[in-house]
């Protein structure tokens, strides 16, 4: 019986994928935010989720984490999303708009929450937790700002703090929502370096990105979304053709997009 289980697991190809989504859909009331997305996102790669605002990128992240009700199925690293979350395999970096920057927490507090899954009920950090937090702060160049209230940091430093939290968590899969929005160049470079370091250690990274700047250089694969549908999935050179970019991002006029969507 257990032998058969093991065999089944070996045969299950989803174990080698970061995310396997089948027929994934998200509806907010009457509004369809994501429709029937079937895709395999490979482990050990950096994947960009690209499209205009409202194309379904954030909905897809939310559905993968099961933060919103969805149709279809998701597997994360061969497990159910709930199993993956409880095992601490998934880290999420929120977009800046989703955070209350006035909240009474320090940078170190924020990074320490990355370790909560490994702590006891009272969430008292052990020496290993403190070391991991210190290391993550160091890696993102925030050690000297560790005791500042989170809102006292610049946009780039804030984003680095949340990436540091994901590093402290030591997750297998990182989901980042607009990690480069409102971020200065040096912070962007620091974050890119960390993400590339994760890829070298066979970790999986999914980045939500609302424009195309820098995407082709950073990511291994692009998932191009338009109006909640998967337009194309592949390496940047193959996916980001002028025609597809025009289709996903429109010719700059809303009317053009509406017409195209009508055809689809």
């Amino acid at each position, binding site marked *: 019986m257990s032998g058969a289980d093991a065999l089944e697991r070996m045969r299950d190809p989803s174990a080698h994928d970061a995310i396997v989504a089948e027929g994934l859909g998200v509806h907010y009331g009457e509004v369809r935010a994501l429709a029937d997305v079937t895709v395999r996102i490979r482990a050990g790669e950096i994947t960009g989720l690209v499209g205009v605002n409202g194309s379904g990128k954030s909905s897809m992240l939310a559905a993968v984490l099961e*933060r919103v009700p969805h149709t279809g199925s998701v597997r994360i690293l061969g497990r159910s999303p709930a199993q993956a979350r*409880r*095992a601490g395999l998934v880290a*999420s970096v929120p977009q800046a708009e989703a955070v209350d920057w006035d909240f*009474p*927490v320090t940078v170190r507090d924020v990074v320490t*929450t990355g370790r909560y899954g490994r702590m006891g009920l009272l969430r008292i950090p052990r020496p290993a937790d403190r070391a991991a937090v210190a290391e993550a702060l160091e890696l993102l160049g925030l050690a000297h700002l560790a005791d500042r209230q989170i809102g006292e940091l610049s946009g780039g430093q804030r984003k680095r703090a949340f990436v540091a939290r994901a590093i402290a968590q030591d997750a297998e899969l990182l989901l980042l929502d607009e990690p480069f929005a409102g971020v200065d160049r040096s912070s962007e470079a620091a974050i890119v370096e960390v993400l590339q370091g994760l890829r070298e250690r066979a970790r999986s990274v999914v980045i939500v990105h609302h424009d195309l700047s820098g995407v082709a250089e950073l990511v291994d694969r692009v998932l191009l979304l338009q109006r909640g549908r998967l337009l194309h999935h592949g390496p940047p050179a193959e996916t980001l053709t002028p025609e597809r970019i025009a289709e996903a991002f429109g010719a700059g006029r809303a009317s053009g997009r509406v017409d195209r969507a009508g055809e689809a």
Partner: protein
Amino acid sequence: MDATLLDALTAPFAYGFMQRAMLVTLVASIACALLSTWLVQMGWSLMGDAVSHAVLPGVAIAYILGLPFALGAAAFGIGAVALIGGVRAATRIKADAAIGVVFTTLFALGLVIVSVTPSDTDLQHILFGNVLGVSDADIAQVLIVGGIVCVALLVLRRDLTLVAFDPGHAHAIGLRPRLLHAVLLGALALTVVTALQAVGIILVVAMLVIPGATAALIAVRWDALLAWSVGITVVAALAGLMAAFWLDISPGGAVVLTQGLAFGLALLFGPRRGLAMRWSRARRHALHGG
């Protein structure tokens, strides 16, 4: 210390009723102070207002049936929260409107129930508190319920804070934000039970909002926030009851008024967002700029 001042501070506690009032007020204040840090940071202050008013019918029914107030209050407090959620889900009206409809309706129901009960002296006590005349049973209730709330909040404080700050991350690492929200709302219903003994239903919301709002003007770390919130509330309880004793004024009113005073001081002189601090900072900038 001046002997007369010392006498003035200790004399009230020669009376049993003052000792009991102090005990009830302190326990209720501390439970409220802890809870208020989360309510304020999560933007749930109105929820505190709602639940504190919505318990009135529960308290009235418990009074008629001779049951402990806590039972009726908890049932209606939790019921009100569920009803607010239900109204929102069923009608999609905005949260503040759903809260406004549910709590005022329940409060009105309470007034009607009270109006048909033979004695209405206790209504005054429920609405405005009767801390100088609490019974042994009331004290036992406050200690048990308040104690449970304090322990639960302190044990779960880091998870509650994470859920308040970043529910997405909390969810992603396997915590259950909805369950923790439910814990907070349950604690709210129970805390209201203790606080209405101290200051009455009308002023409970003050105890649930002012300490957390005051501490937020001072502290930048959560544990410091909790400490300031509790510290302010303890000082306000002591000072308020003392004023009530010597000036012969409403104890609930005096306690809340002292809290309000503390908020005013923090607003003026708080290190985080105090007006004095902002003014001097602006002045420094102006000097450097010029």
